[in-house]
Structures are given as structure tokens and as C-alpha cells.
């Protein structure tokens, strides 16, 4: 049952991700990205990570992709036209992608994934909150600093016009 659901979700993720980069209408690409993110959230649910799934939908579907669509809509050159999906430098791009793929493959195969048996669905929210505020408080603060820098940068760029 769970394996079947995993394969269905994986098929949706891969198909929609392929469509994101191959569709010629950029608005359709953005919608496919939403489908992809939503299917990833489904994957989290099969792994009993309910909090992560809700946050995935909230951040990626509710904020990131919506802002992308918004940018597409206010950009006049993009609306209604079909876009080329290939640019002028296929060879450097292919090289970078191959290197990235090899690195990821090494990282994934070298990591020893601990396989534990089926465990009951536990509330994950409190555990995540405690971890963020105690063990991982420094990375957490650094990430929020990076976000703050990005916000201020966006405001400065917007004010220059």
C-alpha cells in the first residue's frame, strides 16, 4: 500500500518537474511547479512528517510559487507568449549538471541511512520547536539573518527605480 503510494507520488513529482522545464508557456510551468511541491508534501505525509508537509504547502505553494506567478503576470514581455526553453550555452550547462549529478549521487550513496521499523505517528511539532530553539539555534538565527538581508536588498533595489 505505502510502496504503491510512493510510486504514484514519485511519478507525479518527476512528470510535473519535467513539465516545469519543458512547457513553453511559463504560467503553465509555474502551475506544474505547484503540483510538484504538493506531491512532495504528500511524500512527507507517507513518512509521518505531518508538520513538514503542512509547512511545505504553506511556504512553497502559498508563498514562493504565488510570488513567481505574480512576477510572471506583471512582466509584460512574458504574458501570453511562448518561451524558448533552451538557451545558447547547452554544453557548459550539461557539464555543470553532470558534475552536480555525480556529487549528489556520491552524497546519497555515501550516507548511511538508518532504517528503523514502523513507528507510531507522533506529534512532531514540539520536537521540531525544541530542536530549533536549543541544539540548532545558531543555524536557525543565521537563516533568519540571511532572509532579513534578502528583504532589505529587495527594498533597496525597489527604491532605486
Amino acid at each position, binding site marked *: 500500500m505505502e510502496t504503491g503510494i510512493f510510486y504514484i507520488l514519485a511519478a507525479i513529482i518527476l512528470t510535473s518537474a519535467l513539465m516545469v522545464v519543458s512547457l513553453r*508557456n511559463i*504560467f*503553465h510551468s509555474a*502551475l506544474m511547479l*505547484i503540483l510538484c511541491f504538493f506531491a512532495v508534501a504528500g511524500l512527507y505525509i507517507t513518512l509521518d512528517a*505531518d*508538520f513538514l508537509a*503542512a*509547512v511545505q*504547502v*504553506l511556504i512553497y*505553494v*502559498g*508563498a514562493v*510559487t*504565488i*510570488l513567481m*506567478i*505574480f512576477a510572471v*503576470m*506583471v512582466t509584460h514581455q512574458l504574458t*501570453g507568449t511562448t518561451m524558448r526553453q533552451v538557451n545558447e550555452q547547452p554544453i557548459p550547462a550539461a557539464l555543470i549538471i553532470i558534475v552536480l549529478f555525480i556529487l549528489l549521487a556520491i552524497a546519497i550513496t555515501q550516507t548511511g541511512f538508518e532504517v528503523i521499523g514502523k513507528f507510531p505517528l507522533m*506529534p512532531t*511539532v514540539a520536537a521540531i520547536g525544541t530542536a530549533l530553539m536549543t541544539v540548532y539555534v545558531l543555524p536557525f538565527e543565521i537563516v533568519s539573518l540571511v532572509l532579513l538581508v534578502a528583504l532589505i536588498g529587495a527594498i533597496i533595489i525597489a527604491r532605486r527605480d
Partner: protein
Amino acid sequence: MLELNVIFEAVHRWLEGILPQGLVTLISALGTGGIVLAFLSILALFLVWWERKVSAHMQQRLGPMRTGWHGVLQTIADGVKLVQKEDLIPSTADRPVYFWAPVICFVAAFMAYLVIPFGRGLIVQDLNIGILYIIAITTFTVVSLLMAGWGSNNKWALLGGMRSAAQIVSYEVPLTLSILGAVMLAETLSMVGIVQSQAGGFWNWLIFRQPIGFIVYYIAATAEANRTPFDIPEAEQELVAGFNVEYSGMKFAMFFLAEFVNMFTISAIAVTLFFGGWNAPHPIFNFVPSWIWFMGKSLVSVFILMWFRWTYPRIRVDQLMGFAWKFLLPLAFLNIILTGLGVLIFRN
């Protein structure tokens, strides 16, 4: 005691006696889905009629009077008319996007009812991320509005869709932060847990410890549901009808239904988080079934939303954004800081 969960539990036990376990799970899942869908459809029919009567009486008119007693059958007549209408699709429309927009809008509105606690034991599934799930799943509403705006290939619809995206993304931030205060006091995200933490009497309701949180939530939720004074995505005088201008027949009906379902959703969340959910105001009123308390409080809240609509004029687009980022957001942060201080001082 007319608690409805007794009936559902009896039916479930009866099914378990005559059918295998897998089939019972399937039937109860489909059955609860069907019951919620039927409830929401009837509720939307009632709310559309009620909105028309409330607006009419506030403007010293009578409203619908011809179909049935005081026009109670008006929405059914409207529904029959909408079903019969030709389903127009603009020739330049982006067809798949145009088709899926109302479907996603309706499904997003419907999905929130997975975790709404209608009464004691009367909840489809008590997820332990309850309130977070509702915030997450209802973001698909804005996706559907953008799809409708884009798919129609109409400049009014596109403008309406863009306005709604900007508005909902902005107001979602204070909305989520305003809920956090209540969650900090209840110490749980589960909707049932939040209601249970307010049991015992009206002095335990979170409205008395979260007045700022409630005000921020109510304003931001009104904006999220595109209700006046925040109905800028469909401002009739400026945008004809906004994102749904090209829709007709059943597709328009789905948008319309979703709007009224969303209005009930934000009322139900307000009641659950701040007004004790299904709890009676005082233990001596416990003889009244819990679902009557929940429905009564929610409908009062819906009435207040309607009251807003016929009282306040619409605010301008630039005022709208400034209000969200410069007023509601700092207020929501202030509420979180005060709540945190309160928890620190009074719990230890």
C-alpha cells in the same frame, strides 16, 4: 442530550458488525466526505439567502419575497437557473487553466472541513497539526484565483487575479501570526485540543486573553475571504466582477459556493480559537448539545461579517497593502511578544 456523534458511532459499529474492516474504512471515509459536502451545500444555499435578506433589511428593502416564505427558496431557484445556463468559454481562454480554476477553488474550500470540530467528538479527523493544516490547504484558494484570472484571458479578470494574489499573500502573514498567540496559550495545534483547553465556562475562552490576536485574525481573515471592505479582487465598480468575470453557469456557481463556504470557515476558526468552540458559556448550559453551540456561535460570526459588508466602504488598493504591513503585522508581533511574556510570568 442530542449529541450527533452518538448516531455516527452507532452506524459505524453496525457496519463493523456486518462488513469486513477494509470496506468499513472505505465506506466511513466516503460517507463522512459525502455528509460534509451535503452539509456545506445546504449551508451555502442558506447563507446566500441570508446574505440577501440581511443586506435588504439593512438598506430598508425586503429582499427576495416571492419564492416560498420570505423567499427561502430563492437560492434553489437561482441554482436551477445557473445549471441551465450555457457554459461559455472565451475563444482565447487558456482552456485547461480556465477549467481547473473553479474546481481547485471549491476543493480548497471543502478540504478545510477535515479538521473543523463541529461538536464534541464531531470532527472528521483530529490532526495534531489541525490549525496549521487549514492555513496550508486554504492557500490553494489564491492559486485558483490566479488561474481564473490568467485562464480567462481578460484584462479585468487578470487585474482581479493579481490584486487577489497581492492581497492574500500580504494578509496571510498577520493571519498566521495572530493565530500563534492562541496556539501558545492552548499549547497545541490540534483543533480539538484548542477547544478542550477552553472548557469550563466563558471566562476560559481565549478571547479574554487574546483580544489583540482576535482583532488581527478577524480583519486578516475578512481580507483572505475577499469580503468587503477588502473585496478588491472583485470590486464590481472597477473590475466588472474581477477574476470570475468570464465564468458562467456551474463554474460560476462553484466560485460563488466556495466564497460562502470560506466565510463560514473563517467564522468556524474564530469560534474554535477564541470563543470556546463547542463549549457552552457556562456549565449549567451543558444540556444543550455541543453542535448547537458551535453552529450558533459560527452563524453569529457570519452575521457580523455580513454586517461589515453592508456597513463599511471598500478601501483603496494602496491603503490595503499599507494597512496589512504597517498596522496589522506590527500588532500581530506585539501580540506574540505580550503572549510570550504572559506565558513566562504566569506559568512559572
